[in-house]
């Protein structure tokens, strides 16, 4: 891989390339968006009201030399702010950031590109902005253009470039800047699929070159594809630091699970002591009207319920592999659904069942005791039953809704509560399949090689 100096050429290898220590950053956002001198003249003493947004609250971590390090978080979690603090674009309020080696920031491809100038001027301008001296930029210009394969279009104005050519030029400049440490923002990977693929191809190459890279993204698949380690931020606080698998799992949990989000929220609110209006603003109300259950995710849709009332489903919940109540299930593990039913009248051999739908309302599981154990006996008024459905969770990551029902032996609903509750299934292998069935991939070579290499997921 050309373009990179050997990492840490000028610096001591024992010093970590990036150390971040307890960094705090807050933004004061004025309530009135536009302020004018006129207002100031009319109300010279009035302090303009501001909201405080605590974007980073005590972030610490260190990146090892040659590591591809991911910073993940949902929108507004502070990840881009962190990147800008590291890049020196924002000043931190407290805490320190130490950088060992030459650093370059790529928050946007082709910063300073001007559509009215030819590629030559833009490449020189961009390279200078990114930290090269103009002389150095001119010296490397030919190599940049070769790399971008744009030799015939050097004097074409940028506004006449196709988007693909633009990316090639911007990336070519970027990797000729000779940084030991690259800070890359996810915005690089926006755009159409082809553009993204191009960006990812470049990431792959950068990764192979052993530069130290920090990638800020909310795309877990990119993290799992490229990163050695990752840091998960939520409300400006580090939540998890470790291998991409575990961070990815936690991220999905935060993304989908109301429970986890509220726990985070509560923690941050408690710590802030009402310091952050933003935190309050993002507290989402938990689902009401879903009986004894907590959130359904679609709380405002009234639940449809059918039945003659001879029995009632009074409570339902999911259980994890240990049988504990859970709002989040992980793909691949044993899990279960349970519901408590109270009888109001005598019922003979009732049927208990559930129906599981994913977010597209595909039915993925219908389970009942019809085929397994139809003769459960007779229940009288006041009797309570808990019925469980245990199953191996092969569901793909998504939110699932469950409709539990009790029916009479000969037919007819006794109590059916449509989409009574929902659960989030998280997993780290994002695919577009409905199910995540256990599988193994076997690759067999022809002769001369050991018969098979196995990839078991």
């Amino acid at each position: 891989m050309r373009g990179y100096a050997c990492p840490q050429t000028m610096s001591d290898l024992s010093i970590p390339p990036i150390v971040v220590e307890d960094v705090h950053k807050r933004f004061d956002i004025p309530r009135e968006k536009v302020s004018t001198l006129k207002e100031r003249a009319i109300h010279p003493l009035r302090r303009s009201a501001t909201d405080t947004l605590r974007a980073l609250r005590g972030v610490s971590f260190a990146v090892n030399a040659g590591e591809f390090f991911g910073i993940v978080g949902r929108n507004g979690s502070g990840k881009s702010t962190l990147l800008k603090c590291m890049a020196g674009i924002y000043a931190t309020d407290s805490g320190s950031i130490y950088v060992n080696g030459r650093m370059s920031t790529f928050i946007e491809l082709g910063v300073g590109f001007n559509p009215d100038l030819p590629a030559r001027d833009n490449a020189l301008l961009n390279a200078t902005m990114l930290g090269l001296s103009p002389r150095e930029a001119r010296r490397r210009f030919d190599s940049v253009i070769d790399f971008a394969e744009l030799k015939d279009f050097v004097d074409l104005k940028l506004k006449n470039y196709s988007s693909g050519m633009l990316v090639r030029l911007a990336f070519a400049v970027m990797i000729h800047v000779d940084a030991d440490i690259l800070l890359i923002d996810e915005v690089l990977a926006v755009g159409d699929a082809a553009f993204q693929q191009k960006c990812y191809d470049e990431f792959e190459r950068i990764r192979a070159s052993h530069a130290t890279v920090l990638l800020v993204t909310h795309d877990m698949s990119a993290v799992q594809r490229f990163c050695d380690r990752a840091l998960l931020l939520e409300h400006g606080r580090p939540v998890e630091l470790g291998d991409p698998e575990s961070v990815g799992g936690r991220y999905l949990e935060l993304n989908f699970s109301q429970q986890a989000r509220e726990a985070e929220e509560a923690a941050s609110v408690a710590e802030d002591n009402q310091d952050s209006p933003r935190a309050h603003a993002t507290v989402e109300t938990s689902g009401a009207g879903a009986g004894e259950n907590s959130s359904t995710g679609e709380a405002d849709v009234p639940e449809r319920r059918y039945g003659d009332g001879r029995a009632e489903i009074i409570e339902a919940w999911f259980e994890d592999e240990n049988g504990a109540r859970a709002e989040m299930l992980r793909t691949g593990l044993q899990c279960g659904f349970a519901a408590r039913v109270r009888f109001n009248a005598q019922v003979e051999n009732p049927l208990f069942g559930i129906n599981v739908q994913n977010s597209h309302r595909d039915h993925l599981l219908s389970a009942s005791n019809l085929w397994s154990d139809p003769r459960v006996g007779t229940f009288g008024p006041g009797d309570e039953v808990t019925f469980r459905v245990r199953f191996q969770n092969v569901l793909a990551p998504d939110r699932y809704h469950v409709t539990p029902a009790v029916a009479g032996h000969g037919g007819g609903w006794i109590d059916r509560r449509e989409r009574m509750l929902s659960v989030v299934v998280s997993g780290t292998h994002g695919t577009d399949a409905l199910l995540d069935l256990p599988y193994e991939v076997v690759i067999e070579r022809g002769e001369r090689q050991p018969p098979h290499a196995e990839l078991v997921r």
Partner: protein
Amino acid sequence: MSAPATPQARQPLENGARAGAPALGRPIKGPSALGSDPKRLWQLTWMLATTEFKLAFFGSALGYLWQLMRPLLLFGVIYAVISSVIGKLASVPFYPTALLLGIVLFNFYGESSGGGVASLINRENLVRKIQFPRLAVPLAIVLTALFNLVLNLVPVFIFLLAEGGRPRLSWLELPLLMAMLACFVTGLAMLLSVAYVRYRDVKPIWEVVLQMTFYASPIFYPITRVHSTTILGVHVNLAHVLMANPFVAVLQQARHALFGPGHPTAASAIGGGAMILIPIAILLVTLIVGFIAFDRAAPRVAEQL
């Protein structure tokens, strides 16, 4: 120092503390006006200014011609109207060239201060996306205007020679005077650019101020024709007041240097010796206040855009 999140982080910190050797890289301090490397500030300023200049040149069909025509067109209108309304002005030595010089210098003054106002906002994509010495942004505006000024001074000298002016030793004052004017507008550009980030009515206000400055400067009239007057019962020597503007002082001195004794020196136009210190003091204060304001705002300007 709070505990870092990872064992990887903790280790080097402790080692460093024990050995007493720096175990960390250089600290990142966030953005500043000047940055740590003056050479880089200059390179970026130069790069931005030349790019802007190129755009003005190659951006429009007329390019260089248009750059020259603008002051000349204004000159044509003012000269035709003024000389027909107030014929007496023709008696001012080198009046046409003096008028053109006034227009050209005012152009520079307006272009750099007016361009400076919105400079940080216009360069938002740079300021928010990369770390660089923030001062490069307003400095580049002044530098671009300076390139244009040099271009526009060419017809001034052509006029002067055509009118029968001959080179004098005092022409050498000109670079110094231009440098002084550049310092003044740099101070203004720094001050106005950060003010505009906070107060969005600075731009229209400054446009009005510029227009007022145009008429309150001896551009199309000589300072010698400005008489004392009584405003609200107070006797005011208007010429002396106008001369307090550093722009006017530079303009007047430049005329004296180019055209000779027919135009008084700035010092005599303001009423003698020590009085010339007033525009010089205003110039220095503007430069210093402008820098302090910019330097204080620079670390946070990226978040306020």
